[in-house]
């Protein structure tokens, strides 16, 4: 149990939060872990708040409930802060990662009474520059792996190269862009702990 890492993703329908939750599970699977990746289904529509989850463990996972006390919270859309209680249940030793162009201290001011670890990443811009399209989920994935240290950087990059080549076998032109977005996100995600 203690080696289980639980991640809760907050996004809006259409932004790929579910895909990101599954991608993270995929990456951990490729690294030899037991994983679960699942969305919380509701009456989704484009733009409505959605939640997705990732569990990663070195032991078999039997729990089949949603995640209420995550180790990491990933906010794919910063406009959800204040609308959805994104911080609910976050473990004291955990961290929140927000997709925003703002600095961590600016985001911290929007989170009431939070003095835990906080990281920001401008996933939108990275995606736009690396892929030419606004798909924040690849950079968010890189940021979570970096912040959580769930696997070594080079192992993760190698795994994802392989995974993207497989996933985009019919459109190889996007592999390089996705890899660029991934590597940049791992460099550019930053916290305000110092």
């Amino acid at each position, binding site marked *: 149990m203690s080696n289980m890492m639980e991640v809760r993703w907050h996004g809006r329908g259409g932004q790929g939060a579910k895909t990101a939750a599954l991608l993270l599970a*995929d990456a951990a699977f490729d690294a030899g872990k*037991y994983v*679960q*990746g699942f969305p919380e289904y509701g009456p989704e529509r484009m733009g409505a708040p959605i939640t997705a989850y990732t569990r990663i463990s070195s032991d078999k996972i*039997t*729990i089949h409930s949603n995640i*209420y006390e995550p180790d990491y919270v990933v906010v794919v859309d910063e406009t959800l802060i204040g609308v959805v209680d994104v911080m609910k249940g976050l473990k004291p030793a955990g961290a929140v990662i927000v997709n925003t162009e703002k600095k961590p201290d600016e985001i911290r001011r929007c989170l009431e009474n939070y003095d835990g670890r906080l990281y920001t990443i401008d996933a939108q811009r990275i995606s736009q520059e690396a892929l030419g399209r606004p798909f924040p989920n690849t950079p968010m994935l890189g940021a979570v792996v970096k912040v959580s240290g769930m696997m070594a950087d080079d192992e993760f990059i190698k795994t994802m190269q392989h995974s993207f080549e497989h996933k985009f076998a019919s459109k190889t032109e996007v592999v390089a862009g996705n890899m660029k977005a991934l590597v940049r996100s791992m460099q550019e995600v930053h916290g305000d702990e110092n």
Partner: protein
Amino acid sequence: MAIRERLSGNEAIAYAMKQINPDVVAAFPITPSTEIPQYFSQYVADQAVDTGLILVESEHSAMSACIGSQSAGARTMTATSSCGLALMWEMLYVAASNRLPVTMAVVNRALSGPINIHADHSDSMGARDAGWIQLYSENNQEAYDNFIQAVRIGEHAQVQLPVMVCQDGFITSHSIENIELMEDEVVKNFVGQYEPVTSLLNPHEAIAIGPYDSAAYYMEHKRQQAEAMKNACQVAKEVATDFEALTGRRYDYFEAYRMEDTETAIVVLNSTAGTAKSTVDTLRAAGKKVGLLKIRMFRPFPQEEICQALAHLKAVAVMDRSEGFSAAGGPVFAEVRSALYPLEQRPQIINYIYGLGGRDVTTQHIEMVYESLFDIMETNDPGEVYRYLSVRE
């Protein structure tokens, strides 16, 4: 060599179907089982299977097409959920009484109303008396393994009955998890070639299927059908033995989890069993003698074996993810309690209705159930027998 993969429950079923390569699949989409025929249709389009895929206009038609196809001697499969299963109702009985071993994936979902797309067992529990064998699955692995075994169980000459393989809608059907797949050839050899005992397309033995059956014979046919269901117990055991030899994965009528020296246990099926296992581990680590009995085969109902497995307990909670509206408890409870009747000294037994319409069930909820069993053990008074878990009232 087993193949290490990660698939959702729906992907796992579609993949099993692909490996089995049935003669016919007839289906109509309904959430949350839609992905099964959807993924399978891709295999058809890619010519990865040579199955005839019949896309029909309703679930009633889907089951009717399955009946026609299986009567002709073709190995036939389908998938459905909730109201889709309800719309098949009339035809479920026809498939079973015509002794047609159709294999169906049921992705459990609440029945309307109020309309709801999430997991509970009101669909398959309502169909429990239709004459179908029912297997329940905790996760994607069990859904896959049960589906492959279902073919052999249903088609066995001493059985010849349709089988539904159930799993929880969204909770496992849409969750990506690790899974060990068998190789294509291993699956193909395991299920073998379908050789129907009788078929409409056999020119050497002309038969009638589905004619009117008067009072002079109807009852004998029902008796034979009931006997076939009894036979399914032994056949399920034999098939599981063969399956274990191939995969190392053991399947009994139920899984007795940490039931040695147990004083209290819960009885549950499908995904909540996994969540409850985690609670059992936590409570065991704290020195509590708790266990879990997860029913895999609900039809036929392994009455004597369940009785034996629970006989030594002091208190039992039976979990029902559907309301039977009997005003006296859910369907699993009624059967499990009845199974205990022959005992001279029976455990105290209570029922919890839980998780209706997808109400999430956490390890804390399961802990509350065990807590109530500890209370009962202490006072030797079951109190209210018919209870609800995690409900506002």
